């Protein structure tokens, strides 16, 4: 009998815990998805498969509220992600390709500030700011706040991508008579595209998902999907909430998956 190789890495039980971890992470999401397809007025009992709550989301009594909330959520997410991605791409170019400079650490601190400050604190600060400069709370204040906290999420994948691109490509372009601007637009930008796309998608999801800050700065009457869902959940979980949650959940998973596969398209030499 030959003894199998001594596996120095393997530890008993760790595989089991990993599976447990995945079960913990996914079970609640799966349960919500399954129960959103429940043909019952209560969420407690399973009464067979049905799409009725999905239909209810689009044409039920609350459909108008959800439509407006969805419109707000998506338009804000698109504008916020676009603005944050643009600002972040410029900043990443300076941070990664700007050599060493004194304000580098300070700039990085400023960019990652929205990640370090607890969300509720950022929400309070933003509310106080809007209040003291006299901005009326509503769609615009939500948008302004969203762009700010989306910036680090867009920045991180973009700068990571740029760090992964050897600067010899831009040098080769300049060596071949391209100006710096041409080297940026014709060489660097196309190579960074996967990073920019995943940065955009992450910013988009973060904006779409935000509840706490939105809840503080939205003002009366303006709702996004998360604040609308929260309002309904406060009165108890209803089946139509499960349906709308499942749709939002599926949408996020879809975007993250796209982002994952886009960033995987690596520039192989």
């Amino acid at each position: 009998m030959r003894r199998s190789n001594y596996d120095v890495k393997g530890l008993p039980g760790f595989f089991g815990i990993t599976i447990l971890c995945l079960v913990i992470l996914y079970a609640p999401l799966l349960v919500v998805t399954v129960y959103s397809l429940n043909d019952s007025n209560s969420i407690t009992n399973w009464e067979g498969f049905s799409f009725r709550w999905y239909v209810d989301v689009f044409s039920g009594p609350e459909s108008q509220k959800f439509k407006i909330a969805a419109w707000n959520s998506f338009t804000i997410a698109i504008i916020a992600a676009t603005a944050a991605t643009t600002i972040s791409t410029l900043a990443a170019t300076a941070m990664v390709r700007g050599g060493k400079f004194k304000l580098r650490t300070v700039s990085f601190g400023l960019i990652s500030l929205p990640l370090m400050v607890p969300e509720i604190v950022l929400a309070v600060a933003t509310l106080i700011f809007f209040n003291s400069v006299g901005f009326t709370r509503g769609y615009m204040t939500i948008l302004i706040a969203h762009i700010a906290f989306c910036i680090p999420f867009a920045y991180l994948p973009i700068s990571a991508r740029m760090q992964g691109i050897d600067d010899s490509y831009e040098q080769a372009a300049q060596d071949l008579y391209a100006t710096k601007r041409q080297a940026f637009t014709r060489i660097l930008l196309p190579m960074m595209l996967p990073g920019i796309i995943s940065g955009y998608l992450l910013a988009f999801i973060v904006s779409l998902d935000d509840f706490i800050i939105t809840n503080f700065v939205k003002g009366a009457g303006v709702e996004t999907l998360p604040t609308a869902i929260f309002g309904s959940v406060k009165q108890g979980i209803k089946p139509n909430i499960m349906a709308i949650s499942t749709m939002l959940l599926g949408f996020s998973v879809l975007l993250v998956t796209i982002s994952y596969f886009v960033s995987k398209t690596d520039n192989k030499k």
Partner: protein
Amino acid sequence: MSESRKTAIDVRGAVKRYGDFTALKTISLSIYDNEFFTLLGPSGCGKTTLLRMIAGFEDVTEGAIFLYGDPIADLPPNKRPVNTVFQNYALFPQMTILDNVAFGLEMRGQPKSQARKAAGEMLELVQLSQFAARKPSQLSGGQQQRVALARALAPKPKVLLLDEPLSALDLKLRKAMQLELKHLQRETGITFIFVTHDQEEALTMSDRIAVMSAGELQQLGEARDIYERPRNMFVADFIGETNLLEVSVDAINAGRATCHLGGGHELSCNAVEGVNVGAKVHMSVRPERLFMSEGPTDSEGLKGTVRENIFVGTDISTLIDLDDGPKFIVRTSNSDRGNKRIFEPGNEVYVNMEMEAARLLID
């Protein structure tokens, strides 16, 4: 090399400092038109820094660089008619091979169709026409190497810079590319400046070599010259295998120096400027220029004992301990073994030197 040759690149007193660190210490050298010139040295010797200064990627802290008489030190890289083959090739991954090669021509203002036509011709020269529509990632390392070469040559630069372009290739491919590069240089008549840390590669390809170490130029000369007449310890040691012996200079007469080494052994060799009577210096003797005999010959034989034979393919290296003296390595070719006695460990042996084999080093 006739002295009347045109100078392609003239580096005058170039210094490069990064803060407190000096990467290049006042280098001056001239590179001739239509020459295959190599910058050779170990990691961190400053050879790449010098190359990048010529390309325009590093600014010159002090001094000047001239390209066919014009000062270029203040020009950005895209204004210098000099192209580079990068160590990692830096082929633009999102472009086809043809577009990569056409890039430089396009940037110089040629219409796209014309640039592509010229690029196609360039690809023919490096025998890669069939890959024109592919992306760089679909090519092998050797093919990418040739594309990088074609791309840098396409705009017809006045000087081509090559930054260790063969270091990523395996030995066999590297040898083939060495010859191909050499041919290409002859065919195009463009001045090549080649950077490498591989002394064998440098000796194989170059017309002239500049050996660098610690930011300083150690020796500049033709390949053969550098190998046979190293100026100092660093060059003798870095290039090829050698016996480095500590000697004292006893007398200098009519261009010949008489020296002795440990154990009282006497040797004579050509005198060298800068080495005077009484100096304790090093002497370099290439192992292949030594031979062994059973008894003393008319040349100055040094008596010793064979310690070990090492078989190295085409040669045998014999390690010899001189009586009361230093160790020697003698390299004997395996080619006409019939005529030579093979000395076994423990045998007594005399080590003899060919004329002019020993070389005094200045430090």
